[in-house]
């Protein structure tokens, strides 16, 4: 009796397997996109927003009919792991994504230290790696499978500082403050050069550890330099707000800059009216005539999911998914190396509009997304766009 049942079951299973093999080539397949992002700790919201945007871009692509490669239709699925914004966890995440899950495409990674840990494995194992990490040390011909999907200090600093000098011609001196990690250190080097190039003398350059809760002592030191400008480089928004608040309490008045400042809400929430006048180079404005319906809706969705407006770092994850789709369709392949070879030639619609990849003059190879630098300023508690500087390379291609 039991033997008979077993035989029937075996026959049924064999029939199912045979049917699956004979299914049409148009059946949809899933490509997993790995994400190495902070999902706990102080940067958790950046990670949560990034994951939400990856899923949102994947959903849009699925709605539009998926990715069509050689008659097959593929869709994306985002797989996120918490890198806790540090190298040790970044290594663990790299192992889990690449060796355990067998992922061939990193849809996005965040934080220079964990990204370096992931890159050491992804390049060796032939995995295509899209990242928002700012460090220029992760790019170059040595890393052909790594692509940066947001503006970094190299793209932002020169146009931003040029604009600030243009509208504040009287500035002569600057004091710099950056977080003491890979992102902060690389930002500082670029900022120093850019200020010197416009004739502004760097009076001091200080470091603080992420997680610092009291900024009064460093604010006192910065105020004592009597610098015309305070540039907080890669300092996160809420820390920036606290520094400006303390500077205001001491009586310092001058030009306030957060070069790679990504979110105005944090600066305003922490700094109050001391945040007024702050120039930022990586913030995104979601109000005004220049904002499209799609951008507004995307931000509303993000805000509902994470409790605050989306920022440029998170938006990189959205653009990454769109760029990967364009590259796979151009290459007509889902092999990471073939897709990487196609990425320098793709044209796709990013969150900011038509985009592509460039940066050969700066990095030695085409690895940098080309999106405009949006110079913003906080005015009366609101973020406003004061200038949009198109990428010269992108302009030349038009």
């Amino acid at each position, binding site marked *: 009796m039991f033997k008979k049942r077993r035989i029937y079951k075996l026959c049924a299973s064999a029939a199912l397997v045979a049917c699956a093999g004979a299914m049409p080539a148009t059946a949809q397949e899933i490509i997993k996109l790995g994400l190495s992002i902070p999902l706990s700790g102080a940067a958790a919201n950046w990670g949560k927003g990034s994951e939400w945007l990856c899923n949102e871009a994947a959903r849009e692509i699925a709605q539009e009919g998926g990715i069509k490669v050689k008659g097959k239709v593929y869709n994306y699925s985002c797989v996120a792991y918490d890198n806790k914004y540090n190298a040790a966890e970044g290594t663990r995440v790299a192992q889990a994504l690449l060796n355990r899950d067998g992922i061939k495409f990193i849809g996005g990674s965040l934080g220079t230290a964990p990204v370096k840990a992931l890159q050491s494995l992804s390049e060796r194992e032939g995995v295509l790696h899209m990242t928002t990490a700012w460090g220029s040390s992760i790019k170059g011909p040595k890393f052909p499978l790594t692509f940066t999907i947001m503006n970094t200090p190299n793209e932002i600093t020169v146009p931003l500082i040029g604009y600030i000098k243009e509208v504040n011609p009287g500035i002569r001196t600057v004091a710099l403050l950056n977080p003491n990690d890979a992102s902060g250190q690389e930002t500082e080097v670029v900022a120093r050069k850019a200020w010197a190039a416009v004739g502004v003398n760097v009076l001091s350059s200080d470091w603080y550890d992420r997680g610092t*809760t009291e900024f009064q002592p460093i604010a006192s030191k910065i105020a004592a330099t009597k610098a015309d400008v305070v540039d907080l480089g890669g300092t996160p928004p809420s820390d920036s707000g606290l520094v400006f608040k303390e500077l205001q309490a001491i009586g310092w008045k001058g030009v306030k800059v957060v070069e790679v400042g990504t979110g105005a809400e944090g600066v305003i929430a922490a700094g109050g009216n001391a945040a007024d006048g702050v120039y930022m180079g990586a913030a995104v404005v979601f109000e005004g005539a220049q904002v499209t319906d799609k951008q507004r809706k995307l931000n509303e969705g993000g805000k509902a999911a994470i409790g605050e407006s989306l920022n440029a770092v998170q938006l990189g994850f959205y653009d990454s998914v769109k760029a990967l789709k364009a590259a796979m369709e151009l290459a007509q392949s889902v092999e990471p190396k073939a897709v990487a070879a196609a990425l320098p030639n793709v044209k796709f619609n990013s969150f900011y509009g038509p985009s592509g990849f460039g940066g050969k003059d700066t990095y030695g190879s085409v690895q940098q997304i080309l999106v405009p630098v949006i110079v913003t300023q906080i005015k009366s508690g609101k973020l406003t766009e004061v200038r949009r500087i198109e990428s010269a390379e992108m302009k030349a291609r038009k």
Partner: protein
Amino acid sequence: MQTALQLIVTALQIGSIYILFSLGLTLIFGVMKIVNFAHGQFFTLSALLVAALVPWFAAHGYGVTLAYLFAAGIGVVTSVLLGMLIYQFGFRFFQRDLAGSFILSTGLVLLLEGAFLHYFGGAVRTVPPLVSGNVNIFGVNLTSQRLLLGLVAIMATGAMYWVLSATRFGKAMRAVSIDHEAAMLQGIPYKRLAFQGFAVATFLGAVAGALLAPISVITPVLGSDYLVKGFIAVIIGGLGSVPGAIIGSLFIAMIESIGGFYFDPSVANLAIFVLVMVVLLVKPNGLLGSR
């Protein structure tokens, strides 16, 4: 001279919060001989509730000061209740067990941090200023808000010191921290005292959180940053010593203030860790710790 005065006032402001925080840590160690790594989470819960409830009360027609007082009350009471619950179902079984309490409190940190992130979200929260403007005392600039909250913190520390040194409850607690078996032989109810001590320690952490909320940005991980400083303060001062916790906290605040001004915050942090190593080498039980 003016710079020196500014740095001292800054250190006192920073130190007043550290003192309240580390008093809780040292009290728990004194009575139960355990280190509660989840102490920062009670501090965070109180600050998060203040940051979430002040706008809510303000939106319902209460003035900012009244809204803050209500929110601070709710924050402190909720934190203390959570502390009591955790004691009854957790720490009660790990008294005088350093390894067991370490594992339990580390697990609680992860659990509570995850819960805060889930329920309060990861976005930074702030509390509207209770009082506006700056004051200038002998050429030293500071915000009225910091001055007010610093004074409240100093008064709370003074009150706690008085309770521990002059009341029956305080004396019983000190007796337990010196020798709990001898204290029990004298009729001091150790179990009840341990429970009350844990609740008082949680209360101190929660008060520190509520006081910090209007002058900082509140995130679900705020407590972890303060835990490191608070723990260093009690190590320097001597685990279980109340005056030691005060001295240790002021030491750290001084280094942060002076080191942050003459060098930078990173160097100041490094100096704090070097100081701990030196203290542990010279006086392994801390400056005022007993063997």
